[in-house]
């Protein structure tokens, strides 16, 4: 195991960085951060030209960890140069995709890591101001971030002339108030500007006209934290982990009936088997499917083929699913797959912003109603086809990706678990809900 790229958390060459401090006593304080080597990467970055910082991130192969996997260095390079205008770096800390909870612990237990990442990104794209848009429910993370920002200002790690350079950087935290759509980058900007959080038309892209019309870049919490270690340890270190097109390490999350649910930092390309058995301790009851990367990702059946799939962008796409945020949810065999999809559809229906018809009427109206009908034993012959037809009408025709995100899991469930739908409809059976609370 000591040659070739690192694709297993058990490889002795693998070192954890993102979550190295999480769970340790007082890990969120500046003292603890400095003791673990914090604020060295920003010093190093400030000695480099901004473009060299961008190149290093490009070379690392880091792809955005917010779900879409867009190359981070490339995104930074889209920012215009020498505009003389205010640029902004925005951190997407809205983390609302069901099954995802990795960003919360990054902020609760290692807020200085994120502050450092924001400063590095800010320096690279000439943004002297940064905003962290944090979901409103994350109270402990908010408190710790605010305390950390205060500490950083007191030490001169934020504010004017960072570490003796001529780079100034101010950082603010804006709290959300419970709306999943605020995670969509243009909706997030509207929310931050004090408007209803409807997504904006693209183009213009944020790099041209973002927050208050100024050039802006939005990155996920984990992406920004990863940049710290890429600068610190070098692009080659990062690229020594993972697969050909999915480099580095990632925070995978496990929920559902497994022995040890939680967050696991592993190299890209680790298999589901390693994650779910070696790290999460295996299932505690019979499982029929996993949702591989947060609720918007099509479910895959629980079998050897799925378990031996490598957790990276390409391998999951090849299986007809997505890596998403890396939030794995196990669905027990005793629960109806249709009922699980009803829950997810209800979620997207509730979170639709109502701006466009396919999503407002199609997801919130038709899809939610149809799932209610089928799962309560009122389904009729042809309903499964109606559902499929709906998916065809909605997918790819909505204003933003929320409606697509609502369709993907349902489509995946129809591909692998169609018989469960047909069974409910033909037998006019209501789903069987077993007691699951103790």
């Amino acid at each position: 195991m000591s040659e070739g790229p690192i694709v297993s958390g058990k490889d002795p060459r693998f070192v954890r960085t993102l979550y190295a401090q999480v769970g340790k006593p007082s890990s969120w304080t500046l003292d603890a951060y400095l003791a673990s080597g914090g604020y060295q990467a920003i010093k190093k970055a400030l000695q480099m030209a901004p473009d060299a910082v961008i190149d290093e991130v490009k070379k690392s192969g880091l792809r955005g960890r917010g779900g879409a996997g867009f190359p981070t260095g490339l995104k930074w390079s889209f920012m215009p140069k020498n505009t003389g205008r205010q640029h902004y770096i925005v951190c997407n800390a809205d983390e609302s995709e069901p099954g995802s909870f990795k960003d919360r612990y990054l902020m609760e237990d290692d807020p200085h890591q994120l502050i450092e990442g924001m400063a590095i990104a800010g320096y690279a794209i000439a943004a002297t101001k940064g905003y962290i848009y944090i979901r409103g429910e994350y109270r402990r993370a908010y408190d710790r971030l605010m305390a950390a920002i205060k500490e950083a200002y007191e030490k001169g790690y934020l504010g004017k002339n960072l570490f003796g350079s001529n780079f100034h950087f101010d950082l603010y935290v804006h709290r959300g108030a419970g709306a999943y759509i605020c995670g969509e980058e243009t909706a997030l900007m509207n929310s931050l500007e004090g408007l209803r959080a409807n997504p904006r038309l693209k183009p213009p892209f944020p790099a041209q006209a973002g927050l208050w019309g100024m050039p802006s870049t939005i990155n996920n919490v984990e992406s920004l934290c990863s940049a710290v270690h890429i600068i610190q340890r070098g692009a080659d270190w990062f690229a020594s982990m993972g697969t050909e097109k999915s480099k580095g390490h990632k925070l995978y999350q496990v929920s559902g009936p497994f022995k040890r649910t939680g967050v696991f930092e592993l190299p890209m390309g680790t298999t589901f088997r390693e994650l779910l058995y070696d790290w999460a301790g295996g299932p505690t009851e019979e499982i029929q499917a996993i949702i591989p990367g947060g609720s918007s990702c099509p479910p895959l059946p629980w079998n050897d083929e799925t378990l031996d799939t490598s957790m990276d962008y390409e391998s999951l796409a090849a299986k007809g699913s997505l890596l998403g945020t890396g939030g794995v949810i196990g669905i027990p065999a005793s629960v109806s797959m249709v009922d699980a999809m009803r829950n997810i559809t209800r979620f997207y229906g509730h979170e639709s912003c109502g701006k466009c018809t396919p999503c407002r009427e199609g997801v919130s109206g038709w899809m939610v109603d149809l799932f209610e009908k089928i799962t309560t034993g009122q389904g009729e012959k042809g309903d499964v086809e109606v559902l499929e037809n709906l998916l065809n009408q909605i997918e790819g025709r909505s204003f933003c990706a929320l409606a697509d995100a609502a369709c993907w899991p349902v489509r995946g469930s129809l591909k692998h678990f169609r018989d469960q739908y047909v069974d409910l409809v033909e037998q006019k059976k209501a789903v069987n809900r077993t007691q699951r609370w103790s």
Partner: protein
Amino acid sequence: MGFFDDKQDWLAEVFSMYPPEGRRSAVMPMLRKVQEHEGYISPERQQEIARILGTTATEVAGVMSFYSYFQALPAGKNHIQVCATLSCALAGSDELWDELVQSLGITRGEVTPDSLFSIQKVECLGSCHTAPVIQVNDEPYVECVTKVRLRALLEGLRAGKKLSEISLPGKSGHVVHERGDEASI
């Protein structure tokens, strides 16, 4: 007297977070502040916020209604939010909800006669590994909510204790596994 009359310093600090053209960004922090103090945001308060921001009350109401956290009607002293999304549902959040409805004698939109409790279903709180999860007001989460833990929580809240003062039996959540061989929650 206006709610913000004696909070000018706080307001100035909020405005300082945003550029001059971005005064309107203060609307969410202001709504939050009112709700923290009064439990909900009355039409008068919405009007006051609109006046300070130089916009209309309709605009403020429009923003307010977009977010599930902001309440237009009085809530209980302890507003209990139950996560209803998939991982929590798989851990029995529906039954947890039914138990709350039964033991408090209220449902969504209602407040107990002693004004102590109101309940709401919310979507994924970002703690799916410690399902089922609930949040009381704006406090850190109560995780791995079993029947025993729920009973202890309600008892503590009824006795007027703060969330942080209530000791809940059993597993407590907030565990991040670093290694596969680590003990379970």
